[in-house]
């Protein structure tokens, strides 16, 4: 128990040190504390820290210091000390004596609204915790893949080389080839946390870090909604309604808790950084502040180093926001453009751009910035899953109730110039970009799975649905007050009807997503068998495991640490029947029909000698051959050795 308590302390202190402290000091150095309320700063410090730690670890990985506990700790301390010195110097030079805390603008929110926010946050965290009690044990495939790269960084002290080997046409294991699917920012801050806290990879640590990212996203949506509707007297009501629609309701379906337990790291961090950058750009444009614009650019860079799809989505929503702004403000657009150019050429902005270019060209170029990766994302949709969703599918992704309100809300937004011209353009642009990318990707030459893009729409849809709900209810209320021809009962009934519709829909969605049981029993047996095999393997041994029936199989490679594709894997059966792409068949033959001639050629070519399978399904074919020994037996895992 003492070990548990000390590991918990180490973990939480590390979370504060890695995910809050660097951001606090950057906000100090850039004096952003004068621009944002405490609540906004709280979320900004978190998002900023992810970006700072990412760049810091890349920098360390490129120097002889390497990525170690001491170098990461030292790097964070050095960064914070530099920021502190810069800020102190600025205050001294300008004779500023006002305490920093007094320079932070106060959040204008009533005590009653505050309590409502606290209650909604409680419900949000409570519902997600209930879901995670059966999903906290790490078994998810994607998370296993990501944690392999993180562990590789921790084990070697070097930045990972994203490469994998495949079985070639000659049935031998080929040379390592680059993988564009993994983005380094997905692994850097996890590596920093693992190094400093000493947390085990097969533990709650990865899911808890992702859950924290997600909960901060929920808060980010709340503060962004307040920012979007800052000119409305109902800004807090709209933000609280948005929190209701994104927090306790629809709390589990993708891209919320399901994405966390699934280990979709890039999307999760992208879902945090997109609203945060939007908050910053919104303020920068409204108040024409180059320093805020520079800060927004820095976070955008952090996004670019974390997730390609989110960056792609962000580029589109920025383009759509600009187009919407131009279309709604034709008279002022040229003057505005001049103002934007002036802001974008200020020293702070140019400095961030220079920093980004130096990083891309001299330190680390994100893996997706190669022609092959770009070609796979841009162009005519190449697969059925990329040709766009139907309206019905989009409705189901966005949540029926939210979607219903958002459709009318977006129409209303076109006529709501009073909310602010930038606010209006950003909100419409964000929603339109995602709607078109999801429904008609061919119009935009987007070649990315449509359901992945559609998952981003949940956030703007919630904000717009909240806006419409509040507009309807406040309009009804004012009519009752002023003209006295509507019965107050009508307002009450409308309120309860809307709330019932939204709540039952959102809670039903939650119920659909709840797990029945944890798969930890089977996964633990997989990990026990992996530990056994890891002790026995020599450099010549090649392992093949099954992805179809083994629980937690993507985590097996963390026990071996011999490469991303070690062990080889029999994938889902449909992969081997893919008519659009020729795929190697060896991994299927060697488990499904190990005594056939094709399998014999595959065994000879790949030198595979250990096979990990589910004994209930795949052991009989091995037992019929004198070539294989069964060397390990448990309820969920059998290991066969090819002796001849």
């Amino acid at each position: 128990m003492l070990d548990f308590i000390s590991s918990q302390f180490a973990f939480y202190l590390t979370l504060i040190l890695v995910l809050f402290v660097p951001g606090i000091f950057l906000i100090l150095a850039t004096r952003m504390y004068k621009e944002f309320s405490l609540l906004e700063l709280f979320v900004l410090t978190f998002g900023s820290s992810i970006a700072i730690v990412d760049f810091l670890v890349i920098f360390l990985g490129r120097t002889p210091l390497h990525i170690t506990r001491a170098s990461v700790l030292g790097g964070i301390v050095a960064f914070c000390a530099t920021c502190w010195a810069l800020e102190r110097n600025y205050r001294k030079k300008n004779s500023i004596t006002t305490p920093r805390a007094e320079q932070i603008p106060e959040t204008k929110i009533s005590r009653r609204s505050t309590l409502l926010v606290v209650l909604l946050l409680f419900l949000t965290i409570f519902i997600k915790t209930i879901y995670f009690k059966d999903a906290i044990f790490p078994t998810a495939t994607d998370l296993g893949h990501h944690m392999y790269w993180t562990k590789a960084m921790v084990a070697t002290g070097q930045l990972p080389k994203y490469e994998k080997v495949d079985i070639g046409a000659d049935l031998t294991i080929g040379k390592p080839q680059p993988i564009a699917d993994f983005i380094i920012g997905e692994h850097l801050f996890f590596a920093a946390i693992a190094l400093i806290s000493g947390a085990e990879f097969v533990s709650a640590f990865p899911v808890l870090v992702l859950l924290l990212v997600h909960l901060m996203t929920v808060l980010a949506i709340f503060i962004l909604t307040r920012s979007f509707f800052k000119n409305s007297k109902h800004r807090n009501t709209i933000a609280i309604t948005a929190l209701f629609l994104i927090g306790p309701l629809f709390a589990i379906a993708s891209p919320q808790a399901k994405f966390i337990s699934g280990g979709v790291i890039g999307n999760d961090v992208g879902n945090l950084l997109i609203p945060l950058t939007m908050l910053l750009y919104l303020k920068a444009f409204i108040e024409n502040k180059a320093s805020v614009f520079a800060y927004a650019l820095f976070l955008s860079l952090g996004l670019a180093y974390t997730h390609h799809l989110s960056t792609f989505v962000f580029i589109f929503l920025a383009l759509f926001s600009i187009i919407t702004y131009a279309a709604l403000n034709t008279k002022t657009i040229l003057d505005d453009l001049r103002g934007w150019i002036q802001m974008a050429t200020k020293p702070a902005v140019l400095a961030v751009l220079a920093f980004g270019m130096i990083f891309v060209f001299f330190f680390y170029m994100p893996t997706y910035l190669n022609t092959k990766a770009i070609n796979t994302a841009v162009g005519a949709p190449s697969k059925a899953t990329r040709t766009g969703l139907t309206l019905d599918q989009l409705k189901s992704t966005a949540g029926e109730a939210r979607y219903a309100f958002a459709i009318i809300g977006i129409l209303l937004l076109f006529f709501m110039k009073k909310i602010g011209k930038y606010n209006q353009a950003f909100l419409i642009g964000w929603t339109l970009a995602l709607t078109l990318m999801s429904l008609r990707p061919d119009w935009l030459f987007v070649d990315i799975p449509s359901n992945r893009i559609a998952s981003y729409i949940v956030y703007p849809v919630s904000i717009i649905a909240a806006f419409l709900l509040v507009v309807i209810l406040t309009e009804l209320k004012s009519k009752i007050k002023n003209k006295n021809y509507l019965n107050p009962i009508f307002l009450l009934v409308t309120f309860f009807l809307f709330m019932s519709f939204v709540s039952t829909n959102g809670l039903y969605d939650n119920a659909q997503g709840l797990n029945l049981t944890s798969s930890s029993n089977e996964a633990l047996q997989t990990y026990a068998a992996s530990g056994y095999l890891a002790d026995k393997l020599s450099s010549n041994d090649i392992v093949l495991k099954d992805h179809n029936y083994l629980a937690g199989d993507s985590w097996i490679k963390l026990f071996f640490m011999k490469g991303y594709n070690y062990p080889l894997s029999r994938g889902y059966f449909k992969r081997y029947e893919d008519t659009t792409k020729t795929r190697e068949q060896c991994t299927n033959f060697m488990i499904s029909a190990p005594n056939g001639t094709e399998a014999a050629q595959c065994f000879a070519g790949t030198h595979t000698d250990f096979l990990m399978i589910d004994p209930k399904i795949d052991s009989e074919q091995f037992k019929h051959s004198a070539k294989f020994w069964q060397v390990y037996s448990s309820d969920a895992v059998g290991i066969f050795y090819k002796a001849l």
Partner: protein
Amino acid sequence: MKNISNSKIIITAFSFFVLISFVFLSLVEKKQADINTKNVWMTYFKNPKDASLDFAIENHSKNNNFHWQILSDKTLVNQGDVTVKLGETKTLPVSLSDTQNKKITISVTSSDNNKKEIYKIINN
């Protein structure tokens, strides 16, 4: 209470809820990660790649008593009982002559009749 800003209340409450949730989930995960609560056991060869027949029983179940048999092809050549307590692993040495070209099977049965087999076919 009046001096505490509303932002601070939200941040403090949020941090408190997150902390409670994380501690709870860590405890749940700790329990789920304990293989000794899963009522499973396994048997394996100590040396999977050579002709050695020494095997181990790793027990994470409530059954402490196991019966093992060694079969050469289908002929019983040795058997015995062994007690392996929860969380323990016991290695059983096997020395057998005349194993050439025979399937040597180690069959282990727990007291609740759960049976597992491992085998080697030794050819030189």
